[in-house]
């Protein structure tokens, strides 16, 4: 009845197997004003940040036995800082970093 191009098809109910990877057309890291910073000495790998991050920006690196942060998609909501069980996470102003993303490089 309808002719839907395969490359634009949407799965039923927009449900996809996860994770399938990153969406390069929807970079959200440049929304950030503050970023979470981790003190790996204090981290006990409780995984709260991995579970609570709404954008899956904290992932466990099995080989290194530590959690790693994804700067490309972290919006700076700081839920992880709030949920950290061992005060291993703090916040820092983006301007304090040479690669800070306070200014948009291009309009999104």
């Amino acid at each position, binding site marked *: 009845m309808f002719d839907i191009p395969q490359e634009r098809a949407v799965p039923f*109910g927009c449900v*996809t197997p996860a994770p*399938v990877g990153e969406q390069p057309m929807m970079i959200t890291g440049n929304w950030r004003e503050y970023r979470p910073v981790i003190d790996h000495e204090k981290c006990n790998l409780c995984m709260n940040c991995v579970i609570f991050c709404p954008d899956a920006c904290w992932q466990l690196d099995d080989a290194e036995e530590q959690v790693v942060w994804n700067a490309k998609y972290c919006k700076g909501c700081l839920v992880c800082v709030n949920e950290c069980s061992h005060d291993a996470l703090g916040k820092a102003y983006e301007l304090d970093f040479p690669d800070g993303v306070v200014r948009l490089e291009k309009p999104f």
Partner: protein
Amino acid sequence: MAKEMTLSGCAATAQAVKLAKVDVICSYPIRPYTAAMMELAKMVAEGELDAEFIHGEGEHAQLSVVYGASAAGARTFTGSSGVGVTYAMEVYSPISGARLPVQMMIADRALDPPGDFGSEHTDAMSCRDQGWLMGWAESPQEAFDNHLINYRIGEDRRVMLPQFVCQDGYFVSHIPGKVLVPDQGQVDEFLPPYDPGSHVLDPKKPMSHGPQIRPDQGTIMDLQRAQAFLDLPAVVKEAIDDFNRIFKRSYAPFVEEFMTDGAEIVFFIMGGHAATARHAVRHLREQGVKAGMVKLRFVRPFPTREVGEVLSRFKAVGVVETSTSYGGSMRGGNLLPEVRAALYALPRRPLTTSFMAGLGGDVVSLKDFYWMAGILAGAVQAGKVGKTVYWTGLERA
């Protein structure tokens, strides 16, 4: 064996939810719907119903809780009234877009300002284009039945859509009526357990619900929901046939006719005021006025074909509007535009107009219906309608 009970609309809803063996309920208090949650809380506390009963922090949270629970494969129930319904607005479209068959009871209440506890359909009608099924009950019995019917339709794999199951605040929600409550076996025969299929959150098979899609996929996602609504009428008819057979009822799927044989003028109406309209029609008939009533059971999906076929048989149709559409095409409510659209392509069309009535919980009395009948009879005689909207009881003579 079915048993007869005397129940308010809210209590009837609670009985239906219990017999539907709902898994997760999320409440937040607001009059008048809240009486249903009081009944359900009692049932859960007393061990009659094995469900998770969660208090939301507000209506937005209520809908978010049932959204998640439904995604995890639970049969869910929530509800609200008035400004509570509109406070949750953001969450309605994501639920229907995710194709999750959440069920929400709405016991209508006028929107603010200022505060008014009375029934009016504007709260629910403001949400009619969010991809949910929507329809009204006239009595506690019909409210009870509609909850079961809507779970069955919404959870059908061909549908998978959420449902607003509406009843007029107070007129239906708080006035007790006789309700035939079936036994569990009958309900189980009609309503199988919810099967979410592969469309379910499972830690062993991670799924991402509600991910970002690209702009060029937006139209396609909307087409999926639109298609589900195109496929709905067949499923509704199947469900109503089964319901009538198992519970020995005689529901029309979409449009019920009352005393329309030989009728020239009819009231087109939905919800609790239809009960008064029936009496008005009977009295008018005794006085020789050829009046009838046509009752709408689903606003979404709007039964365009059925409404057109039925209404084109009469000379004049008076749409009783119990919701507002300020500045809308008919300058009154929301139903007359739909009715006129349903009639537009037909070769034979009745005269149509609308009556604003029963807003803010105002009673629509027998006298009001007689007055409407007078306007309709005058239109038939003149061969045209004076205007598209009359404000019942407030028009200068």
